[in-house]
């Protein structure tokens, strides 16, 4: 069916993101195909080869209650939206959540009064109205910087997860970090008619400490305006593995891989955060307060939140540093 309607269909999983968007008339397609009754998508646990997989149709409530998943992931799932939304919302929907923006997540009437925007029905961006082209400032009719607000995506990227897709052309597995593109409209590398089948966690994800911190206007219901995921492995008191990933500060999650410097295949648009510019050395060093401070400073300096979700970008930028510091201090002490 997805093949027949390729290009004009959307998949429905929990519906907690798709239905609010459709109600606002945001990029609605002619066909909606439900994935809710596919048993294969709802499995969580070790597969026959011993790899830990989480099906795309597993609800956030199930991930939150699962005792085998890394603590950071369970904690992250437990802080998404509200218990009612977590009962329906799924992993697949969370990873493919539409990017958010003040000028986009509004009713049709609201958007019409402003003349719409690039991401739906319009031809300009209200957040970045002008861009630099060939040294000249011109009207921005290309780049959308809508914020990527998924909570699980940065956490799973920090944990090194891989995503497996099934589509009309067969099956493929890619690193979750490579899946996201630096564009608020195209968002990710999903071929027409393809569905996410499951994500797989690497074996090392179960030997490290992991954690999650989120800033949102209210502690429940609201989307993150900053999310910080971190994965830490210590050798004595020295850093062996350290990966920090930010959510809700750019068009994609942003990975700061202090150990391997893992880079995204697709670098993204030029307004994109450069995680590796002037990155401090951390591996092999003692994780004392000074090093935590240096790491937090780096994350804060590179983060570039945009003015398109609640709370001022300056404040959110500062909170990237504050939350990173708090999280690493907590993880150093053994985590929760």
């Amino acid at each position, binding site marked *: 069916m997805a093949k027949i309607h390729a290009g004009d269909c959307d998949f*429905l999983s*929990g*519906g*907690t993101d798709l*239905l*609010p968007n*459709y*109600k606002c008339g945001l990029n609605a397609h002619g066909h*909606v195909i*439900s994935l*809710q009754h596919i048993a294969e998508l709802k499995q969580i646990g070790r597969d026959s080869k011993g790899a830990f997989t989480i099906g795309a149709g597993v609800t956030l409530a199930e991930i939150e209650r699962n005792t085998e998943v890394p603590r950071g992931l369970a904690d992250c799932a437990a802080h998404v*939206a*509200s*218990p*009612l*939304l977590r*009962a*329906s919302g799924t992993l697949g929907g969370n990873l493919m959540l539409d990017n958010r923006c003040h000028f986009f997540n509004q009713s049709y009437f609201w958007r019409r009064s402003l003349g719409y925007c690039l991401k739906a029905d319009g031809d300009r961006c209200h957040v970045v109205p002008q861009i630099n082209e060939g040294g000249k400032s011109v009207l921005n009719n290309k780049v959308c910087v809508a914020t990527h607000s998924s909570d699980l995506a940065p956490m799973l990227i920090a944990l090194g997860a891989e995503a497996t897709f099934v589509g009309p052309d067969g099956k493929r597995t890619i690193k979750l970090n490579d899946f996201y593109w630096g564009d608020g409209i195209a968002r990710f590398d999903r071929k027409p008619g393809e569905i996410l089948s499951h994500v797989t966690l690497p074996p090392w994800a179960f030997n490290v400490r992991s954690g999650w911190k989120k800033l949102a206007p209210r*502690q*429940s*219901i609201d989307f993150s305006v900053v999310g910080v995921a971190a994965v830490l492995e210590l050798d004595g008191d020295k850093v062996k593995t350290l990966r920090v990933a930010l959510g809700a500060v750019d068009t994609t999650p942003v990975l700061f891989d202090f150990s391997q410097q893992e880079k995204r295949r697709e670098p993204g648009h030029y307004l994109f955060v450069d995680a590796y510019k002037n990155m401090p050395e951390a591996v092999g060093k003692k994780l004392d307060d000074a090093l935590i401070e240096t790491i937090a400073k780096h994350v804060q300096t590179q983060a570039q939140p945009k003015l398109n979700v609640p709370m001022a970008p300056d404040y959110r930028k500062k909170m990237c540093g504050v939350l990173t510091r708090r999280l690493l201090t907590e993880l150093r002490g053994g985590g929760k």
Partner: protein
Amino acid sequence: MSKRLLKFVVNGRQAEVAVEPHHTLASVLRNELNLTGTKVGCDMGTCGCCTVHIDGKAKLSCLTLALECQGAQVRTIEGLNEYEMHPLQRAFAECGGSQCGYCTPGFIMKSCELLEQNPDPSRQEIKEALAGNLCRCTGFMKIYDAVEQAAGELRKKNTQQPAPAKV
């Protein structure tokens, strides 16, 4: 778009309705089955007013397509108790947990799920379970009081009526 036949069980009774594929469960319950106890507040998943039980789980009926409930067991506020008030309903009335009353069905359905899973929840557990329901009148304290009172009453009722002996 052509209508489809939806067959499901609502409050213990078999129901058959012809529904548009894009209609939500909330609209079918209210407009086709006249079960207007389920309220629609924000229609966007934020307020929790439209909470119903689908196969025993509290979910938002405004973000559930009606056709997804094919063959499901749905329970609404009307199905909580047929002849007398449910202890939760009585406690909400007695404690002042309901003022304008618009959010009350949602709160009661979510609390009902909580008490079925955990008959003796702490105040923190009640707060966490109800974190997706918004009330703009009571300030929440009276709602938490009501859930505690109902929990006590239900526990008393359950110890007075021992479960029937297994044969």
